């Protein structure tokens, strides 16, 4: 058995506990530990993705008990991709936090690794209830991280976020309970088989539980009527936290994707409803994000709207249930995660210079260091709005091509219309932030390249994803094919190869 699968979980857990033991006074040591943890996670995740790239499913049976009875971890291409995305995101966020934000509250260096633990666990687990546990881990860490630094705005947004997610957790349990009560299992592979074989008189209840799961994951992902917590939360959290949260919505998307391909494939009675519903919700969410971006009065709210928009875009790809749709979404996913995170990190030095204006999108004195900041913002804007030549454009192209006309008319309309709104919003924002009447008053200008490094790293990822688009696309296509044949997953979990056969 491949013990590497435990790495993305144990490394952050141990790092967090070491930091807890180090206590609040030894910030330097804590930073070192967190940094080592993040670098280790990145390296380990890449190794895991390498494993997954072979196309084999890696199943890790915790406690050496056979599936479906105990908990298993499963590594497939999708998990590998998301692990790497998370690790890629985490490192710059941590670097940014180490610029001083980590000291603005207690326990940052405990919460941060635990947040990663929760996210990684959610991507790896093959058990529905264990998924709930990892959701709770990532949520409880995110609550504290969102509130890190305090202040009225943060606390109000945090309170709403916490209460809504507690309701979400209750609903999750409701759905899990219903599924267990009907099928008698929690292992997702086993569940898939039992749902498919369920007697017809259970269809309604199964469908209800599937839809409740959709609500739960949708709440995490921020789809249309369930997104209202998102702008305020992302808009108020500290920059590195908001940046890290860019991946949180993707956990919800991941869960939906997993549920829609494994538990409730579109051929079944449950999946049929999901498959019909998902594209509609996706486009509505997409439009909501674009409209929110246009109406945003603060830069961070605008970027938060881009997060919503990205969720809509992802689901628009996923909702097609085709290899090309999945592949488009999976290419778009790391792109949007990293770019929105980069923008969040960028909002900090921009807003920090504008005094009382902060990051409000009103014309004010132009920002200091316009060349560096402006170039980065331009990159972020171009990537975020999906303009060529950066990765956002490629993602959009993949998405549009995955839904040829005339079937894809709605998708094309909404995607392109949203792009226009985003373009307007971002160009207005950029011109208001960077261009304006020159005022004599000296604004404090951040010096040196160090504060801009994390944002640069994240935005450079967009460039890298453009250059490396071909291999990435090959990977995502393979991932999509893997997702569309859940049989392999189920077989790997339930019917392991004889011992000695596989690592």
């Amino acid at each position: 058995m491949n013990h590497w699968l435990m790495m993305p979980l144990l490394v952050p857990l141990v790092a967090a506990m070491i930091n807890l033991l180090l206590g609040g006074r030894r910030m330097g040591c804590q930073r070192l530990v967190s940094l080592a943890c993040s670098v280790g996670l990145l390296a380990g995740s890449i190794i895991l993705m390498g494993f997954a790239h072979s196309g084999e499913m890696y199943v890790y049976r915790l406690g050496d008990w056979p599936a479906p009875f105990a908990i298993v971890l499963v590594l497939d291409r999708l998990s590998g991709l998301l692990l790497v995305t998370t690790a890629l995101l985490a490192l710059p966020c941590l670097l940014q936090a180490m610029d001083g934000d980590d000291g603005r509250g207690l326990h940052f260096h405990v919460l941060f690794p635990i947040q990663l633990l929760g996210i990684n666990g959610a991507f790896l687990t093959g058990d529905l209830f264990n998924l709930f546990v990892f959701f709770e881990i990532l949520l409880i860490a995110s609550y504290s991280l969102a509130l890190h630094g305090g202040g009225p705005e943060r606390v109000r947004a945090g309170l709403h976020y916490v209460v809504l997610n507690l309701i979400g957790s209750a609903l999750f349990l409701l759905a899990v309970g219903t599924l267990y009560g009907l099928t008698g299992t929690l292992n997702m592979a086993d569940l898939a088989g039992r749902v498919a074989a369920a007697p017809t008189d259970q269809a309604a209840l199964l469908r209800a539980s599937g839809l409740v799961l959709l609500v739960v994951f949708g709440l995490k992902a921020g789809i249309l009527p369930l997104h209202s917590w998102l702008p305020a939360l992302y808009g108020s959290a500290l920059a590195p936290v908001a940046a890290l949260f860019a991946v949180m919505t993707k956990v919800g998307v991941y869960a939906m994707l997993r549920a829609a391909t494994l538990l409730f494939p579109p051929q079944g009675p449950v999946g049929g409803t999901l498959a019909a519903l998902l594209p509609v919700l996706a486009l509505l969410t997409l439009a909501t994000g674009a409209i929110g971006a246009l109406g945003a009065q603060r830069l961070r709210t605008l970027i938060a709207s881009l997060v919503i928009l990205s969720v809509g875009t992802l689901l628009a790809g996923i909702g097609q249930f085709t290899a090309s749709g999945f592949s488009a979404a999976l290419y778009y996913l790391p792109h949007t995660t990293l770019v929105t995170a980069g923008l969040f990190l960028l909002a900090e030095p921009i807003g920090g210079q504008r005094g009382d204006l902060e990051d409000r999108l009103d014309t004010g004195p132009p920002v200091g260091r316009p060349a560096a900041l402006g170039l980065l913002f331009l990159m972020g804007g171009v990537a975020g709005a999906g303009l060529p030549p950066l990765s956002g454009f490629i993602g959009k192209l993949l998405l549009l091509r995955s839904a040829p006309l005339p079937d894809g008319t709605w998708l094309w309309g909404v995607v392109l219309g949203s792009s226009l709104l985003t373009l307007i919003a971002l160009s207005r924002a950029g011109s208001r932030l960077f261009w304006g009447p020159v005022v004599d008053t000296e604004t404090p200008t951040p010096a040196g390249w160090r504060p801009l490094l994390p944002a640069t790293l994240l935005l450079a990822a967009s460039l890298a994803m453009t250059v490396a688009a071909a291999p990435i696309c090959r990977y995502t296509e393979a991932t999509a094919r893997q997702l569309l044949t859940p049989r392999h997953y189920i077989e790997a979990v339930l019917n392991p190869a004889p011992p000695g056969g596989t690592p």
Partner: protein
Amino acid sequence: MLLYALVLLPLIGSPLPALTARLAGRTAPVLTAAAISAVALLLALPPLAAAFAGAPMEAYHSWLPQAGLDLGLRMDGLGALFVLLILGIGLLVLLYAHYYLTKEEAVGRFYSFFLVFMGAMVGVVLSDHLLQLLVFWELTSLSSFLLIGFNHQRREARDGAAMALTITGGGGLALLAGFLLLGQIAGTYRISALLDMGDLIRAHPLYTPALVLILLGAFTKSAQFPFHFWLPRAMAAPTPVSAYLHSATMVKAGVFLLARLFPVLAGTEPWFFIVGGIGLLTLLYGAYHALFQHDLKGLLAYSTISHLGLIVLLFGIDTPLAAVAGVFHIINHATFKASLFMAAGIIDHETGTRDMRFINGLWGYMPRTAALAMVAAAAMAGVPLLNGFLSKEMFFAETLHLSALGPARGLVPLAATLAGVFAVAYSARFIHDVFFNGEPKGLPIYPPHEPPRFMRLPVVILVGQCLLVGIVPGLTVAPFLALAAGDMLGTPLPDYSLAIWHGFTTPLAMSLAALIGGLTLYAARQRLFAFHRQRWPSVDALVLFQTALDRLAAMARRLTRLVANGSLQQAIALVLLATILAVYWPLANTPSSITGPVRFSSIDGLTLTGALLMMAAAMLAVYWHRHRFTVLVALSVVGLMVVLAFVRFSAPDLALTQLAVEVVTILLLILALFFLPRRGQSKSQPPRRVFHLLLALAMGTAAGLLTWGVLTRPFDSIAAFFLANSLPGGGGANVVNVILVDFRGFDTLGEITVLAVAALGIQALLDNLCLEAGMVEGIPDRWADERHILVLSLITRLLLPLALLVAIHFFLRGHNAPGGGFIAGLVSAVALILQSMASGIAWTRQQWRAGYRPLIAWGVLITAATGAGSWLFGHPFLTSAFGHVRLPLVGELELATAMLFDLGVALAVFGVVMLILETLGNLNQRCAETRKGGA
């Protein structure tokens, strides 16, 4: 390779000017930029030769088939023509710009943007792949945004740039859709391949949508009516930018696209009517409005719109000769309009204004510039012996053969002549109003001088070209034109001659009519201006556009607030509504009954009593929700009944856990109650309450239905495995505990992590917080004087060892009987809290100074290490082991790794509960001290 170098050189070299500016001042950047352009121009020569030789140079590489993205460049005649225009005029503009830009401006940045634009433009005209063309297309929009907004201190510049980007960027999106559609129809995005597939494409049902989308892109870029309005506003750009982008290059990208795709898309009715119609409208509209501009550049901008309309109309006319005329006019317009812009810039530079109402009689101050400008303006008017005349002549000729229009065919020549009239009139105004018409009035800079010689040099070159082409077209432009038009059409060109004199023909008559009419019109301009002011109340497109955008943004805000209005109640209601739909919709849409086939079990009195009590207490909690203290009592009853339910249905572990958790929760609630505001909450509005009640009822019923549906169905679970393997495989008779520490020990590890983080989060939340103690109504104002009650503190001290003994008992037996680490941790924590309640937290802390955070950390680490320990034996994480040891005297003893696991759990749980309560308890202490210190 050469082609790639040609495109990439300006793009890759673009940072250089900005970098050299930092190092070497003002001249270095322009030299760098010029050097790059010049090298690019040299690089363009070999492919140009190849194009002339009829074997266009091309390079094509497959890159990203999934996205349909390939890399492809091809330089045929049409591309070559545009490359020459772009690079040649670019070089001239660079020279001009060096003198135009003032010292304060960030010249380095300017030239960098300029090079990006140049590279993008070259990319557009050389692309052999639709999507790649689009990439460069959007890049031109972006770089032009930066160039227009270059003087961003001025509002017009900022807003003008944003408007230009919005329109052209939006058009780019339509173009993207159109290209994708075209690719979908043809199965390829390669332009050279598409050119042969015109018939197939035109017959496809998706042809019209694709055409419309592509035309949207082309028209927005080429400022065709009704998307023209951004162009006059883009005049806020520095004049070199206008001369380059808004006369010679960027606005030509749209017409280039029409030319490029002419063999693919042209030749249908939609093409004819849309392209021709829009072109005609634009031609007239631009020509008319140009006359009434007081701003020099404004006049030129509208004139540009009009000329672009002319070219579009020519392409719309859809004959080979019209196409030739269109290409010819592209060249001519580029030369005369660029020179005119430069002249206007010189005037602006030397007088400090561009308003023709103040600028008069410059002939007397700068005669050389005036002469040059007058020649160029004459070309613009279509005066013979100048290049504009030739192409306009061809245009007039082509308007005469529009048989498709039937009886209305006469209208087009008429309209063309009318446009000619206005063109002559505004050209006349440009000449007369600026260079003659008396003396200048109130110029900001007076007296104006001739510009530096080299600033005039580009104008001289361009005007010279106008003359040369106008006089000896056959020796100058003819081969280029033939090559470009030929490669555009892809078919052999029809016979035509570029001559000044074709005899007395109708087109000549039209030209003359235009000349005479135009001059007359200009002579009668006073009356016409009055008429125009009446008819066209001055509406500023920019203001309109801004207002529209602001309204749009406001609407977007309203829409956004419709869902996310910052109210938690609404957000909760939405989540609930979604859930209710998620449950009821499938239930309502499925014919099968919600009730399953399982027979119901009977109710006994005790269970009924417990359930009734539970429900009543819950309702009581709702009824009393404004009386916080009382709610706690009701909540305790619910908790107690839940415990009973767990006992009733054979779950002692659950009962124990629930009990312990319940008490700690109530303690926390009481502690929190102390700090909540005294004021009771007001009642909400009745309609809202009714809505909430309905929502709650619907949700409750949904949950009830799910319960009912599940419980009435047969059950076949994986439980048998646990029951069978718990004792032999896990070494414990308490299956629940074995599941918790072994089968699903991973959940437990996660669960204590959650607890740990919750405690740490709570500590972070209470950091630096100080609250006024609040009270609840019905509870006294004053507290009792007695801090600690003797009876209580004495007894609790005696009870402490007993409670700890019980905790240890629970811990040790957990694997085989109800209990376990979690309960042990909670019980010992409660025992210590009891000490705090009886004797005060400070006192308790004095007696026992353990750090709770290390305890938590060690607890989690022990648990994790127990799991990882199995690696030493080559087993997966969390593999358990147990064995029986015989000790002398003691007897047989069971040792299990589960015990170690549980020890970690107990430590962590104890630490968590203590940390939470202690932090909360300290809150009041600290605040009291703060209050005292403050007072």
